[in-house]
């Protein structure tokens, strides 16, 4: 499993890539994609740092969101009511549930990025400039500031 440092390093790498082309608005689809995957590294970094999360009120010691899926797969009896085994294999869905329960401070910002990543294909990957600004200047920026405060990471997004 990647460590906290590795996730942060990858997040910073993605941020630098993003800032190298973002303002040209020529690759808005990539700006959205890179932002979403940067957000994922940020979330996974914090999970790795904390070493435990809550899921439906129960505590689990994990370093990565994928580990929760494996635990739930092994101990099926601990699955909540109405929670089909099928969800365990949807890693993006599982991560979103983890964010909602554990990181409410940024769940709205993460949700905005999640929404855009899930609906990209229905808009034929066309993104207006304002959408990119919304994602980078609000969602991603908020997530970066939160991660720095939460973990002492030194992520920097220069706009």
């Amino acid at each position, binding site marked *: 499993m990647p460590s906290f440092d590795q996730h942060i390093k990858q997040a910073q790498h993605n941020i630098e890539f993003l800032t190298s082309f973002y303002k040209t608005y020529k690759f808005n689809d990539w700006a959205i994609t890179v932002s979403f995957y940067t957000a994922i590294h940020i979330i996974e970094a914090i999970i790795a740092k904390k070493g435990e999360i809550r899921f439906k009120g129960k505590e689990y010691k994990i370093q990565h969101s994928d580990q929760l899926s494996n635990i739930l797969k092994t101990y099926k009896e601990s699955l909540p009511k109405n929670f089909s085994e*099928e969800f365990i294999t949807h890693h993006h869905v599982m991560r979103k549930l983890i964010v909602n329960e554990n990181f409410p401070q940024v769940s709205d910002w993460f949700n905005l990025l999640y929404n855009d990543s899930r609906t990209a294909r229905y808009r034929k990957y066309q993104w207006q400039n304002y959408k990119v600004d919304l994602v980078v200047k609000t969602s991603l920026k908020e997530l970066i500031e939160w991660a720095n405060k939460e973990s002492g990471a030194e992520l920097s997004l220069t706009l």
Partner: protein
Amino acid sequence: MRNRLRFYDSLQISQDFLTFPFVARLNLFRGPDIYQLISEYVEYRIQEAKKEAFREGFEEAIERIKEAINKEIEDYMALVTKIVDFIYETVKKEFKDLKIIEERTNFYFGSKWIKILFIIETESSELEIGLSNFLNEVEKVVFNKLNYVCELLFLNKKNVEIDQESLNNDYPFIRRREDAS
């Protein structure tokens, strides 16, 4: 934002909603043949039930499981419809410059996954953020209180060419609206 919390109790499936005729509820959505979809799912579950039935006594087990399946489907569809309508009505009241054009869904009888996509139109990015936050709040309540995994998405069609084929494939059912133009 806060005052929406008072609506949340209404997300519970009320008795009157549950007793709303099942067949009538099926007509709330237009799209592919939902009767076919349900009958295929019920048939699949009956095949599964037959295995159990050999152990327990055929007729009684089939009847009991059939009733249970129908109840599950009814509860699930009632909840999907209620969430769609709750969001539609709240947005209509509270998001003056944002219009919901269409509410689309698909039904996952096996996993009971609630997936709804709202096609909207607005020029305000603040309202998009507001809607996103609102949908996230509803998702949390549905998961925390009712245990259903819920994915509520939106797509602003303003100045965007929509891939109708993908949309029809992934979200084939559209909520009927009498006041729709």
